């Protein structure tokens, strides 16, 4: 359970940073957004398969 909590915090930082960075950089496209979102989702799915 500690692992998933650490990962959840990491994902939150990762997504917020990505949105702020690409918005400022004017490079926030649909493909870029999906890459971040799906990487985050994949990380969670990989871990839940082992815990639950």
């Amino acid at each position, binding site marked *: 359970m500690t692992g998933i909590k650490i990962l959840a915090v990491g994902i939150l930082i990762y997504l917020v940073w990505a949105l702020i*960075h690409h918005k400022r950089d004017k490079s926030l496209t649909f493909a870029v957004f*999906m890459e971040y979102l*799906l990487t985050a989702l*994949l990380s969670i*799915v990989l*871990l839940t398969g082992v815990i639950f």
Partner: protein
Amino acid sequence: MALRNWFLPHKDTHKKAHLISWEAMLVYVLLFMLLQVGFSITVYTKPGILGITGSIDQKKLIELTNTEREKKGLGKVVENDALDKAAKLKAENMFSENYWAHFAPSGKTPWDFILGSGYHFTFAGENLAKNFYTSEEVVTAWMNSPTHRDNLLNSHYKDIGIAVAEGVLNGQKTTLIVQEFGTTELLATKPVVEVSGKQVSVPVQDLTNKPQLVEGATQVITSKTLLDPYKFSKSAGFSVIILMAILLTLDVWVLKRRGVFRISSHHIAHMALLSLAAGSLFMSGPGVVL
């Protein structure tokens, strides 16, 4: 579609390799979800096919428990036949009634098993564990949980009984570990059982009407366990993370060599998150304590 485009950026458009495109990521997510659904369906349609085979030793668990107690300056607990029987009855009951709890759905309490096995305690306690691979992992998990640690390190206890039982629980082959502690020494309090960090007073009628518990047959595993779903998911997860790390590194290297700029997400951010996922995956396991 050239094979190299699956692994390297396109030589003309410099688009990312197909295997690290967002479309591919979507496929990975869906495949892993499908795998979990497949496992869930299998445990209901073919009970016992999936599961964990641990190498947990009853004597080793007692030895490790005493090591932890000695570290805190507490006396050793001695293996007691009646408590061993109580733990065995409890484990068998969990398999036969298909539950994972201190109190059975049929109303059986932890002290029913202890009293039923002939152990007349004044203070007792119960720790449970399942889905662990080694004895060390079990005791470490109990020590990492404050309520289980308090139970394991309770100075009142003089005796211990442990059962390690294999069976099918919720469709999955499982190794259950039941740890019963107790003392028959006269204490100032009424008989109490400690479960999940709470001290539960044993009703007087339960002490006088000793439950008659019959050793039941544990659910027999008729089919051989074919796959450990947790090890499989872990291996598949590591494979995907390693594949993505290699392809992301190749992507950066090839673009740098070509000297081109492309609007894209940041590979370092992805790699940082995937490293965190790999670390979490490495630390995590299916074992749970109760």
